């Protein structure tokens, strides 16, 4: 039940890039993307050990789900698995917290599903 215009949430990362390649304290990011996850059918590069939402944000995808009634967008909020705003469906299983679940190669993520109905 994707609302129309959800494609506009897929802003391309800004010219500087969303991944922090060089940081004055953390140094250089030595990781290279090791796998691909699929978010609503789009391939997104992901780094070993990072949560799904980190790969999504790095690719400019900020909407993790939409509410049932008003299709209001939701995304990162608490970042540590407590608030449930970031829930996505992973490999068909709904209500997975994208801010703490680590990426795996080939993972299929859907952002548009609300909690699964009983039916």
């Amino acid at each position, binding site marked *: 039940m994707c609302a129309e215009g959800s494609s506009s949430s897929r802003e391309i990362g800004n010219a500087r890039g969303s991944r922090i390649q*060089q*940081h*004055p*304290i953390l140094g250089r990011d030595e990781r290279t993307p090791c796998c691909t996850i699929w978010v609503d059918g789009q391939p997104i590069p992901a780094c070993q050990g990072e949560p799904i939402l980190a790969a999504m944000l790095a690719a400019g995808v900020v909407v993790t789900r939409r509410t049932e009634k008003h299709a209001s967008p939701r995304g990162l909020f608490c970042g540590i698995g407590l608030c449930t705003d970031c829930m996505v469906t992973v490999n068909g299983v709904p209500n997975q917290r994208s801010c703490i679940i680590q990426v795996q190669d080939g993972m299929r993520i859907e952002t548009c599903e609300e909690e699964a109905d009983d039916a």
Partner: protein
Amino acid sequence: MNEAESKAKTVGLRQTGTLSCGELAECPGVPSNERLRRGPVAVIECYEEIPCNPCESNCPRGAICVGDAITNRPCLDAGACIGCAICIARCPGLAIFVVDRSQEDGDYVSLPYELLPLPKVGDEMSGIDRSGEPICVVEVVTVNTRSANDRTAVVTVRVPKSRGMDVRFLRPEGEAGNAF
């Protein structure tokens, strides 16, 4: 004293996040003008009582004193201080500078810098004051990134004479500020 200067003296750190002239003068770690004019010396802009003493424990000349109550503000023995600048990178609050007002060709300011890209020797940059305002053009003289500084670069810049107690940060020339 005009209205702006008067305001600057009364509205200070708690209200704006920037030390007023009066507060700066009260810091026991800020040396006299006379000492500043004799050669490089530490300027410890630590005004509040917070539990912290790495400046004292790291000064090789014992020129900084905090004491048993580690919330005491650091006092500077300006006579013992030789402006070696070790304390700059040791201060967790990035509140220490080394200023030399004895030179003919300008004042020299050493300051902590923890951003990228690092300035390069010879660069001309905007000298920024305590409230983030560009106030003059400065020239980068040294950039010290030794490992003992633990990723706090210590940058020394030559600033116009009389600006040594004003320049506290750097920005690439021509870069716009943040204000909305």
